[in-house]
């Protein structure tokens, strides 16, 4: 694998993570439990889709085969999406959406803090922009985890169920293969192994305050980085890609 191939693959992974979770959040538009949260979730969706756009633009340039950011976002097949499985999981109730975001934001926070120092100037610029937005997301999801976990009996029970169910998807965020090896050696991306403990420390501190617990042991799912997804992604893409598949090249 060349450095260019590794870089392209990496950009796709991170762009897909942001696009897919951004799309999931956008599904809340008009359905939020209260107006403020409807607005918050769609605002966060907008940030994430904006981040995905920047990453796809760069990926298209690195690939250099004439594809655009829109081609990459809308015209690939399911197996070509490289997002982690966590981000494609259905919204469930509001609490489940928050828990999914909570795990994701805490990972992204540490990851993008490392990415700010990337030797690749364009990645460093995207990261510097993105990290400011992630801090807002992180605060939002963390505060809700506490409020729901340490809330009513009903909210506690439901959000605990989501923590248990979604914790199966945590380790995959730390997945590494030769793509990462090449880029770590080049100083382009941080080594996620180095902040895994910090990640767990951060989420456990908040879960404790929320009177919630990670399950002691949980079978860990993976496959997303290789394009092997849960059954949910296909349905999501059917909606996401509908316009471009029906009216190819459509613009407004």
């Amino acid at each position: 694998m060349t450095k260019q191939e590794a870089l392209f693959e990496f950009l796709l992974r991170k762009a897909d993570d942001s696009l897919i979770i951004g799309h999931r959040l956008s599904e809340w538009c008009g359905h939020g439990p209260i107006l403020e949260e409807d607005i918050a979730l769609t605002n966060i969706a907008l940030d994430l889709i904006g981040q995905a756009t920047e990453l796809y633009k760069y990926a298209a340039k690195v690939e250099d085969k004439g594809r655009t950011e829109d081609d990459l976002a809308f015209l690939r097949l399911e197996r070509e999406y490289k997002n982690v499985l966590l981000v494609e999981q259905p919204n469930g109730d509001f609490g489940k959406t928050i828990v999914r975001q909570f795990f994701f934001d805490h990972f992204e926070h540490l990851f993008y803090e490392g990415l700010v120092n990337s030797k690749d100037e364009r990645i460093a610029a995207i990261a510097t922009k993105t990290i400011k937005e992630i801090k807002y997301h992180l605060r939002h999801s963390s505060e809700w985890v506490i409020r729901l976990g340490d809330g009513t009996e009903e909210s506690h029970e439901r959000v605990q169920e989501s923590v248990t169910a979604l914790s199966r998807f945590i380790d995959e965020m730390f997945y590494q293969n030769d793509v990462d090896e090449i880029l770590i050696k080049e100083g382009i991306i941080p080594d996620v192994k180095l902040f895994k403990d910090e990640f767990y420390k951060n989420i456990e501190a908040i879960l404790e305050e929320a009177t919630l617990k990670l399950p002691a042991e949980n079978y860990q799912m993976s496959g997303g980085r290789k394009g092997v997804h849960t059954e949910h992604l296909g349905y999501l893409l059917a909606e996401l890609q509908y316009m471009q598949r029906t009216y190819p090249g459509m613009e407004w």
Partner: protein
Amino acid sequence: MKTEDIWAMLEDVTDPEVPVLTVVDLGVVRDVIQLEKNHWKIVITPTYTGCPAMQVIEEDIKERLGKENITSEVELVLSPAWTTDWLSQEGRRKLEEYGITPPQDEGDKSVLFGERPVIPCPRCKSRNTRLISQFGSTACKAHYQCNDCHEPFDYFKCLK
């Protein structure tokens, strides 16, 4: 046509989401460069990466310069990243008059649950206000309410 003239024209282009602010007040215009006699490059930077106003701003800039028979290309750069520190004093004053509290120093946001900043009410100036939602009507605003005059208001949140 001089650089100052172009800047002056850009003073007529307002943010579509906060129409009291010009793109110059907002600090979104980073540079203007003459490419040919009547052809200029305008360099802009987004406030938030997903900000949908950027496309509108780009079109508005081209349209405004077009009125003086100037063609232009607009380049979007991410680095250095926009910060609310670039909002001009004039911009801050206009925001407050418009009923939006301008960015206050919020301290270090990496401290997750650090102390919340005091966000004064733009209407009665009371400092006794509460956060309704960190996410307001647009990406750049948070939603607050005044505990004294009860006015709900937008706060142009700090981004550093």
